[in-house]
């Protein structure tokens, strides 16, 4: 396993609802252990791209690879096996409301591992402790706050020790401190587990805090117009839209070009 090996690769992906094209010609790859942020304005298709990556929506054109496996060409069993090594945190947690937090986390463990009930209990406790919810296993999702639901959702996403973690708008609906804590948690998980992380967000603070690389999806041209480290994109991206986006809509002078002109 090499560190710079492409873990997820997207080739010439076009996403569409019927005749309505959302994004076209997306090509990028995510390396092992990297944290990639998919950013862009509202309605640009960030979340739709995520749905394509995790096998919920079939591409109109193009392919999605996990390692060497084509997600959409693979047999259903292979696809399921791939998805088992992937954890997904949905926008509002998507916890199953008829189960307690502990049961939510135990479901994948019961279905896909041969662990005993006691061991499953241990794993559940560990995962809840990792997201700072130790002791909340007996609660139902409707009894806890939005931020706690997200953290519990993360605990469930991590239940099977996944290699890839997807986050859909992790900081949406959280107060700045909870959002920061979740960002720190994401960084901590990347550092300690070496997991590959893909985050869909438009929260600037999160983007700068967690991204090693960022992709910008544009609403108007319906394609990806920038890719790179967000700090570098802020000052050096030739697209003004991207610099403005990263600077809260304010003017962001292009430094690199200036330097080039001077040189």
């Amino acid at each position, binding site marked *: 396993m090499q560190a710079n090996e492409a873990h997820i690769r997207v080739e010439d992906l076009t996403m569409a609802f019927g005749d309505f094209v959302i994004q076209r010609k997306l090509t990028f790859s995510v390396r092992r252990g990297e944290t990639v942020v998919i950013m862009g304005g509202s309605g640009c298709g960030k979340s739709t791209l995520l749905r394509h990556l995790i096998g919920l929506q079939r591409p109109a054109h193009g392919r999605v690879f996990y390692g060497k496996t084509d997600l959409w060409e693979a047999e259903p069993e292979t696809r399921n096996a791939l998805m088992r090594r992937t954890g997904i945190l949905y926008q509002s947690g998507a916890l199953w409301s008829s189960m307690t937090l502990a049961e939510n986390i135990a479901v994948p463990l019961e279905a896909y591992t041969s662990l005993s009930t006691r061991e499953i209990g241990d794993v559940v406790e*560990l995962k809840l402790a*990792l997201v700072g919810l130790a002791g909340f296993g007996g609660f139902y999702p409707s009894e806890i706050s939005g931020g706690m639901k997200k953290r519990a959702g993360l605990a469930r996403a991590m239940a099977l020790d996944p290699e890839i973690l997807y986050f859909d708008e992790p900081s949406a609906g959280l107060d700045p401190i909870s959002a920061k804590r979740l960002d720190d948690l994401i960084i*901590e998980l990347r*550092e300690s587990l070496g997991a590959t992380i893909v985050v869909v967000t438009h929260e600037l603070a999160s983007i700068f805090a967690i991204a090693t690389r960022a992709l910008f999806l544009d609403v108007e041209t319906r394609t990806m117009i920038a890719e790179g480290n967000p700090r570098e994109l802020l000052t050096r991206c030739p697209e003004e839209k991207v610099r403005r986006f990263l600077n809260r809509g304010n003017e962001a002078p292009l430094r690199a070009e200036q330097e080039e002109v001077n040189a």
Partner: protein
Amino acid sequence: MTKANAMVDQVNCSRNAEGVLTVRLRGAWRFRDERPAPDLVREALTAGGPPTAIALEGSGITDWDSACLIFLQHVCQLASDSDVPLRLEGFAPGIERMLRLAQAVPDRTEAHREQAGGSFLARVGRSALATLDDCKKTMSFLGETVLAFGALFRGRAHMRLVDLWSVIQECGPEALPIVAVISVLVGMILAFLGSIQLKLFGAEVYVADLVGVGMVREMGALMTGIIMAGRTGASFAARLGTMQVNEEVDALQTMGFSPMEFLVLPRMIALILMMPLLTIFSNVLGIFGGAVVGVLMMDLTPTQYYLETVKSLTFEAVASGLIKSVVFGVLVAFSGCMQGIRCGRSASAVGDATTSAVVHAIVYIIVADSILSIIYTLTGF
């Protein structure tokens, strides 16, 4: 190597002269590997009296996942239970960081739920109190409904006619096919049932009376009511319940619209208006179903059947069925809306609300039907 040997190999406990217990971990520590239980460390801990300290040494770990963290957490727990200082040596930075993360927020013991249970009497008492509470809520919902109608008659209710139309569309015309199918079949069943008995007396022609009176007085309204309970009552509960989950009901309330007037009134009115019409439709089709059986199987002529039916039907009979249908409509709308408005904020709560809306509506309908039948009999209506 035997299993036991492999385990001993993975964990190695030893004590030095100062009483420091060193626990060495080696090899692969993943769920899919064979792993020793933390009891091994507990035994080593108790075997030679409490140690002065525990040193966990992990430089020999080749592979790890949550299984390793769980083992380490158990050892940490053992150490803190017996008040022995613990240090980690030579672990991969990832393991140490995860362990720190897991211990960062202390277990909220007060957060653990107390188990519901208790003695038999306690449970009976609790469920009795819950039933009482349920009755109170039903009464207060009834009161609110009456107030909403009061507001409507004073012309002060916030109700959108568009909503009323769409509900009428949904629970009137769209219900016609299912009502038609069920009514024709019920009419045929009544005719079959009657024909067997009436043949004994050679009075086949009275099948028309039986079907006519049976449908108009009883079966038309009852079957329509039950169909509407399953179809429309469930849909009301699910719809309003989902609105409750999405905080749409709260939004109405904060904008000064009463959910009772905005959501419940149109549904009540729609069912009160549609139920008698559907019942008339059901009566006609039921009689038609009976006629099909009478004409095709019992050698009655259509004219004979028609004349016999008209002779048997009185204004009172038709009116008594229609009065029942209005009552059933109110009951279906009432239980559907009440369960929807009182729904909790989760997917399972919506399911519960829907189920209980249908169950309540059917029970209400049957009880109301019995009461009305008694009243009709006593008053000779």
